[in-house]
């Protein structure tokens, strides 16, 4: 198994009564809640934490894209990945990723990712999320009716732009270009590995299998709730007659490692509840607009809403105990965390585990502590899982010698 350290980069200073007082954490979250001077410190801390993940021994570090969102301060994860190329030299940069349908022309994404692959010495993993409705249709004003078609057209254009050595013309439905010929070219040949983060949409599974991309289920609700989605993925893999290689799948899990459960609660309950109660306060009208999913998905969603007459149990009522019981967070002693993640590996068959060691308003000290204990006392016990399989979704062309920032002359 491989282990990746994921940062969401939440704004850590939302008020205590955020859930009660504010409409949504996303799309129309009031700008007056953002203090740029505090944001400056948060970015610096967050980059430190990602850089520490390399020291601690993680395989990859993950950054992702959200817009107008107080729990994800990365409208451009590419900027963060660029900053990470300077103080890291081994860890892979898992960019999870760029929402392709938002960029015109999509070759801009091919160019920036190629730059990152070259700057990092061939350490880039290229992620292409469709993007949530909050990001794509409400914030960026894309029509949900054409979002997915435009997305897949863009993904195919980008992967061809990386791998086709010739100048080519592209006459698409959404993009028309006379000369596609990006510079620089990625180090990795024919292209960096592609990972597709998703939430369980059937079309996304099909698109991934057909193109031999990795499917990564990014959920905030833990491995038990993820069963249905991952079963759907593996059924799609089987239906296409592809071998069920665990390394073609990824999953995101919150973790909290301490001496014991009581200590875990003392260290992690507050930042965890900050995340679930404040950061997930998304106005329901933004989460499932008409046209984003299929009519069948829409029908199922509406029927269950009418039946329950309420969207879900309010996240505001969740307790630390409930978060653990449902496995939204895998918490406890290293032995307990290993045991739970073994169960996850058995049930979901994921070779690439992304973990959130930082969430909500967790301090840097606690984040380092969680990261270090996970790396030293959990990873070694899980490392050999799925070692009988070859990982074909991982950078292989990383340069032997990575250029490093040089000391600067004092005065010239």
């Amino acid at each position: 198994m491989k282990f990746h350290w994921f940062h969401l980069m939440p704004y850590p200073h939302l008020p205590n009564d955020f859930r009660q007082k504010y409409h949504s954490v996303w799309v129309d979250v009031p700008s007056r809640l953002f203090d740029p001077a505090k944001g400056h410190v948060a970015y610096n801390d967050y980059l430190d934490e990602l850089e520490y993940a390399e020291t601690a021994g993680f395989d990859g570090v993950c950054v992702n894209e959200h817009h107008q969102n107080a729990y994800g301060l990365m409208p451009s994860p590419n900027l963060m990945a660029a900053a990470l190329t300077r103080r890291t030299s081994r860890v892979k940069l898992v960019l999870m990723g760029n929402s392709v349908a938002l960029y015109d022309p999509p070759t801009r994404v091919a160019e920036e990712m190629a730059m990152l692959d070259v700057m990092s010495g061939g350490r880039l993993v290229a992620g292409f999320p469709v993007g949530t409705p909050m990001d794509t249709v409400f914030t960026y004003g894309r029509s949900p009716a054409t979002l997915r078609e435009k997305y897949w057209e863009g993904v195919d254009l980008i992967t061809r732009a990386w791998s086709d050595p010739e100048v080519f013309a592209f006459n698409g439905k959404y993009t028309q270009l006379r000369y596609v010929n990006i510079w620089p070219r990625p180090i990795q040949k024919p292209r960096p590995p592609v990972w597709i983060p998703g939430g369980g949409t059937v079309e996304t599974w099909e698109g991934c299998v057909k193109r031999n991309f990795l499917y990564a289920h990014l959920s905030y609700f833990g491995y038990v709730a993820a069963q249905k989605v991952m079963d759907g993925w593996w059924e799609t893999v089987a239906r296409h007659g592809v071998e069920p290689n665990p390394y073609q799948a990824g999953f995101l899990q919150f973790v909290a490692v301490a001496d014991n459960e009581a200590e875990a609660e003392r260290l992690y309950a507050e930042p965890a509840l900050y995340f679930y109660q404040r950061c997930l306060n998304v106005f329901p009208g933004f989460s499932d607009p008409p046209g984003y999913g299929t009519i069948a998905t829409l029908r199922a969603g509406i029927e269950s809403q009418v039946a329950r007459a309420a969207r879900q149990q309010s996240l505001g009522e969740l307790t630390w105990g409930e978060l653990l019981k449902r496995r939204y967070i895998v918490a406890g002693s290293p032995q307990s965390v290993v045991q739970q993640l073994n169960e996850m590996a058995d049930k979901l068959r994921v070779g690439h585990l992304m973990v959130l060691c930082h969430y909500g308003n967790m301090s840097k000290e606690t984040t380092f502590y969680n990261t270090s204990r996970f790396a030293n006392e959990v990873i070694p016990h899980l490392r050999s899982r799925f070692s009988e399989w070859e990982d074909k979704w991982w950078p292989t062309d990383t340069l032997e010698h990575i250029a490093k920032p040089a000391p600067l002359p004092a005065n010239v």
Partner: protein
Amino acid sequence: MLSSEKIKLKNGRSWQIYSAGKGAELVWLHGLSGVHAVDPAIEALAQNYRVVAPLAPGFNDRAELDQIVDIHDLVLDYDDLLEELQLDRLPLVGHSFGAMLAAELAAHYPRRPSKLVLISPLGLWNDAYPVADIFAQPYLQVENFLWHDTSARDRLAAQQSEGQNQAERIIAIAQGLTAVTKFIWPIPDKGLRRRLPRIKAPTMIVLGAEDQFVPPAYAHDFAAGIAGIQSLVVPGAGHMLPYEKPEEVMSAVRRFLSAK
């Protein structure tokens, strides 16, 4: 009760066409709920006209929209239909999205409509009183957003076999919204304000005083672009005004249509 038939055009497109009544022909361009066999707005018009009501592409089958990329393609699609049905010069009456479509048809083909009636029309945008974001209405609240008089909705639901189930009614609206996203997302003015002066047909606009979706002030915006437009604002009615007050709205429409 309306009758309905499925027809196939020479261009390969299939259409479901509802119709009712006898007399001079009139085209009804429906709103977000589509057309139903029991349809009080159409039935009120059918007292004097033969009403022809095509179901817009995407309302039954999303794939119908694959080759229709924007409002211009949609107008061409309707023009193909009217051409083949030989509905050359006749009144166009539209509601909501259908009214936007009627205005676009009249602007693209000024000689096609003999008269134009726009009921709670989408299609314009004014920063001073923006059209509300219907796509961000939680599904359970969308009906109360569209209807001011919910007792009228309940009466209609009781008459329509498919309307008796709340989930089915909301799904129908969501399907309708899915079909129109291409043409009104994220802001419904796709150039209509520029094109309005092309409209030559005598035009009437009808708005609900309590419409939460398209504020009645849009009467001014349409009046600024269409010379000689007649305006009617109906008190106590919301966006679904042709269904909330069918007799009141449609008798005014019939008077407008029959005037010389």
